[in-house]
């Protein structure tokens, strides 16, 4: 989604103000002239300055350009579903992986994203299972990454060596 430069400038100004506001509370340690707030203060000031110039230059085209330009994909429901499937799949993983374990969660994530792309369940589930097992073998068995097992803890020995 492309937005007008005035909004881009305002975004950077807002971040700059937040940084300066936060940095003002960071006092330097005793006997030191500069403390932890000094560098954020410089960066925040820079962001306000640059954001201000971007916004000012954006004013020149404010009347001729829309405030935001919707990308082509966002005109259909399918486009939104495809776009949101990626962050949604990550959110789903974070929420359930500890309880459901990596194997089941990975299969679910794979099936979800494949379904959004139009791949039927009868193909998505086996593809998800194979990918999950291969990833478990690489990361849990070979690289010893502590992937959670969830309810499949009892069969973890089959894939760990």
């Amino acid at each position, binding site marked *: 989604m*492309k*937005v007008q430069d005035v909004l*881009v400038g305002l975004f*950077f100004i807002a*971040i*700059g103000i937040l*940084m300066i506001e*936060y940095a003002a509370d*960071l006092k330097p*340690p005793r006997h*030191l*002239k*500069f*403390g*932890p*707030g000094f*560098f*954020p203060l410089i*960066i*925040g000031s*820079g*962001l306000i300055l*640059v*954001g201000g110039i*971007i916004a000012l*230059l954006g004013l020149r085209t404010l009347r001729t350009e829309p405030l935001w330009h919707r*990308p082509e*994909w966002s005109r259909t429901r399918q*486009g939104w579903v*495809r*776009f949101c*499937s*990626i*962050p949604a*799949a*990550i*959110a789903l*993983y*974070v929420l359930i*992986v*500890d309880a459901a374990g*990596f194997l089941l969660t*990975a299969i679910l*994530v*794979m099936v979800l*994203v*494949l379904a*959004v*792309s139009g*791949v039927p369940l009868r193909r998505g589930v086996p593809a998800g299972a194979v*990918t*999950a097992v291969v*990833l478990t073998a*690489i*990361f849990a068995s*070979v*690289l*010893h*990454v502590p*992937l959670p097992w969830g309810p499949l803890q009892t069969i973890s020995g089959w894939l760990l060596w």
Partner: protein
Amino acid sequence: MVILTDVLGVLLDVHLLLVIVASAIYGLVLGAIPGLTALMATALLVPVVMFMEPVPAIAAIITSSAMAIFAGDIPGALMRMPGTPASAAYTDDAYSLTREGKAGLSLGAGLFSSVLGGLLSALVLTLAAPNLAELALQFSSVEYFWLAVLGLSCATFVGGSSLLKGVAALLFGLGLSTIGMDPVSGTPRFTFGVTNLLGGLGLIPLLIGVFAISELLRTVTLPPTDERRAQAAVGSVSAGMGRLMWRHRREVLRGSTLGTLVGALPGAGADIAAWISYAVTRRSQKGKDPNALDQKVERLVSAGAANNAALGGAYIPATVFGIPGDAITAIVISVMFLKGLNPGPTIFLNNPTAIYSIFAIFFVANLLMIPLGILCIRTFGLILKVPRAYLTPIILLFCIVGAFSVENTLFAVGIIAVVGLLGYFMEANDIPMAPAVLGLILGPVIEQTFMTSMLKSGGEVSVFFDRPLAIALAVVTLGSWALAGVLKLVDAAKARPVLT
């Protein structure tokens, strides 16, 4: 002589050779798939190389990125779809050769010029880096401060179409680098009570988010393309290439030199090197028919040599000063730190075998590109048969597990989603990512060297102009700012319509 024997010992290790071959195949496959970049291949490789010994870890990154950059030429030449942005400059020339029934010539010229560009830049890297390191040993915190500022400045000036947005992206990256504990006093900043933020935003999850997740977001929203087209008969890729390279030696040399120089410039990577080399060669062809076979090949070999040479060039500032030349070397620097191979001039004194082995791997990887590159061209049809729909969730799972395996927290997995969305929106609004990433990596260096210098001098700003080396670097840095400003004004004046 002792070092040479040690390096040979390291290179002949079967484990290292297996890593090189495996990462070469990985890089070739990912680079050959349109939409998957060398950078993405590197970011996805990090979680795996994290668990390797230092030299094989860096070898895997060098080999896969070099292979991916070359492999991007293959779909470019056969389907007019550059596999990586580094191949975009000469895709039209390469594809038009294919349409004329000269796919073998197009791909062979790309392959052999890539190999020569890579080898020449590896030679420059091996010869220049130790000499620069000797100079860098005289650097104090002040010189490192200026060098980091110079690196950031270059990254901003070459990063994108808008200088202002580049500066804003840089400041944004610097701002993100202040999250966590302050490097001087250890005070928590911008952590908002979240313990996971005390150590700062993990660099690897951030890179995975910025480069892999944002790319996935772009890919899933693209309309499906017909990837079965243009499977032309390739013919011989290697026949007559020795003669061809000799005939175009000037262009290969020009591309390699430009590529190495541009690559060494912080922020400018293989794609910019290829575009510059392509433009310079095109300008040198004034008065000749640009559509003639020889002119097309000239442009192709020049840009093809440049993009692979840029990779070696980027390792010069990365290994000597610890300043990344591009986003791939930014990842390499993080991996080097994590593996205890701290980049900087002292690495040549403390760990000469490791650093010279890394340089030697450039030669091995580029030579290996000939047989494996030919194999990749021959099996390209098979690579394309991997359906895009299946690739997306597999890459997504790799990103998730990769972020988790580096940090061992689900917080890191959440970070990749947030940063991926942020990267997507930044790119959609022409805000370049390279300055933000370099700001994030160089932020702590700049803050630490700045604060150390200020504390040493008791708050006197003149400390930054006290030593001759510091003055020289300050002049170059401030001169680059002035030059960027002047060039911007000239561009603006040229763009203004002439009123009569």
